[in-house]
């Protein structure tokens, strides 16, 4: 029999022996007790081996996952929802790659004054029940909300949301630009507040972008969205854009414009007969630089251009031809001069 000449170490290495020690069954108990009856000389070795094996423990971590968290994860698994861990990897990649297919998404675009955000630093602050995330210029980040909805937060932008949503609604405050992919939940409206405008959806995707004049654009690719401002509301159909005019406080409907409304989500920078001041503001926000300009706006032409995931240098060089400028770059500071 194979065990007859076993030494102490041989027992330690034997699968059947270790299995018996760790997970004894009626059969293995029977086997080993009867074997020992016939080989009492092995008794001491076996007792020692068993003791060694059962003495091995691991130091358990100090931080445990409590049963509440365990139940929460269980529910999310039942709802077939993945965690946000895969986004951690995307955050490390360079920005500008197109992550989503627009086809199945609703895009809502809001605009408000960018000047407002220059004060923000890159930070994440969590106060009880309220989570605040913000980006400085030049940075885009990806955030998962407590309900599983995802947000791509643009540069110089900030969102606030509760660490867990209440029973009735999912309410988020936004300043700046953000793409939302809303987890479908017909019971709980997903509401984005942007200044005086609120956008309500029940499970779909949309983008929020804010511009200079505090106008708000809401552009819908597919699905259904309702926008409301100052007591007026408007339902949008796919390929429609609602514009909230901050001056008059009115809502107007128009067609969706991919370049204007959605391109930034894919890292595409588009200018449509843009004045130099707008060009500067958008480049500053996009790349996190400061740009000074010599002369007056009227000294420079208007820009029509589309930059698909291009570097800052590429764009500045393109501007020297199309706008007839010269530029001087000193670290993060850029001076634009007329040629």
């Amino acid at each position, binding site marked *: 029999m194979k065990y007859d000449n076993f030494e102490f170490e041989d027992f330690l290495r034997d699968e059947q022996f*270790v299995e018996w020690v760790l997970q004894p069954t009626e059969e293995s108990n029977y086997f080993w007790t009867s074997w020992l009856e016939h080989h009492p000389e092995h008794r001491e070795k076996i*007792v020692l081996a068993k003791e060694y094996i059962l*003495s091995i*423990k691991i130091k358990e971590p100090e931080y445990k996952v409590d049963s509440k968290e365990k139940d929460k994860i*269980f529910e999310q698994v039942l709802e077939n929802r993945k*965690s946000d*861990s895969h986004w951690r990897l995307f955050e490390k990649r360079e920005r500008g790659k197109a992550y989503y297919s627009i086809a199945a998404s609703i895009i809502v675009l809001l605009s408000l004054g960018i000047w407002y955000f220059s004060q923000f630093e890159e930070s994440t602050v969590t106060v009880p029940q309220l989570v605040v995330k913000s980006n400085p210029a030049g940075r885009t980040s990806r955030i998962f909300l407590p309900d599983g909805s995802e947000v791509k937060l643009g540069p110089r932008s900030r969102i606030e949301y509760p660490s867990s949503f209440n029973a009735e609604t999912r309410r988020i405050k936004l300043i700046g630009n953000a793409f939302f992919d809303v987890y479908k939940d017909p019971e709980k409206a997903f509401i984005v507040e942007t200044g005086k405008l609120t956008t309500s959806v029940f499970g779909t995707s949309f983008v929020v972008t804010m511009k200079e004049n505090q106008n708000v654009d809401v552009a819908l690719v597919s699905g259904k969205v309702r926008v409301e401002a100052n007591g007026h509301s408007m339902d949008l159909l796919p390929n429609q854009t609602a514009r909230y005019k901050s001056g008059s406080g009115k809502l107007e409907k128009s067609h969706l414009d991919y370049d204007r409304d959605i391109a930034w989500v894919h890292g595409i920078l588009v200018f449509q007969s843009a004045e130099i001041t707008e060009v500067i503001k958008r480049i500053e926000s996009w790349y996190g630089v400061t740009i000074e300009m010599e002369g007056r706006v009227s000294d420079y032409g208007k820009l029509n251009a589309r930059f698909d995931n291009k570097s800052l240098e590429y764009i500045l060089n393109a501007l020297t031809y199309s706008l007839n400028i010269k530029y001087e770059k000193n670290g993060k500071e850029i001076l634009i001069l007329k040629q």
Partner: protein
Amino acid sequence: MKLHYVIKTDKLITAETNPEKFSNKLHQPENKESGNRYSDLELWQMFKKGHEGAFSIIYNNFFDIMVSYGHIFTHDRELIKDCIQDLFVDLRRSKNLSDTDSIKFYLLKGLKWKLAKYIRKSQAYVSLADKHISLLKFEVSHEFRLINHQLESDRRSKLSKIMNEIAPRQKECIYYFYYQGFSYKEIAAIMKLRSAKSARNLLYKAIKSLKRQFEG
């Protein structure tokens, strides 16, 4: 607290085993009506057929073990939770899962690979085992006692020390073999070794180096 008969000789020796340790092993749920337990294979097949009760049993039986296992690779508690969630979602979505007679092995292997994917990407391709297994800390317990035979405390602490100093791969192997109760074949699979024989050799080396240091 369970009593296990250890060895039946002229004198009956019993040991009070550490219930926590054995709860890792004796995970099969009791089927109260028939008094029988489901085997891992039966439970797994029920789960594959979409039996939510079976899933709930699997989740609740193995969740804590998975969390504890995750902690030997990373301090990132959120990452461990996320990977467990994603693993279960993947398993439930998968249409053609293979059968297994050890659900624990299946889940730990899946979790290790998920963790490895994230940890490697975020830390420039270091080997999970080499760098991260250092979080695995053995303790040689004093709770376990056999009549008339105890490891004396200085030998115990010496053994603990040595066990934490051996090569990471050997350490990981010891963990699977003596703590998780994996077979050599399972160890080979989870550590990506060529064969069960390689796992056996690795453990043999581990025991040898432990012995050398213990006696030296």
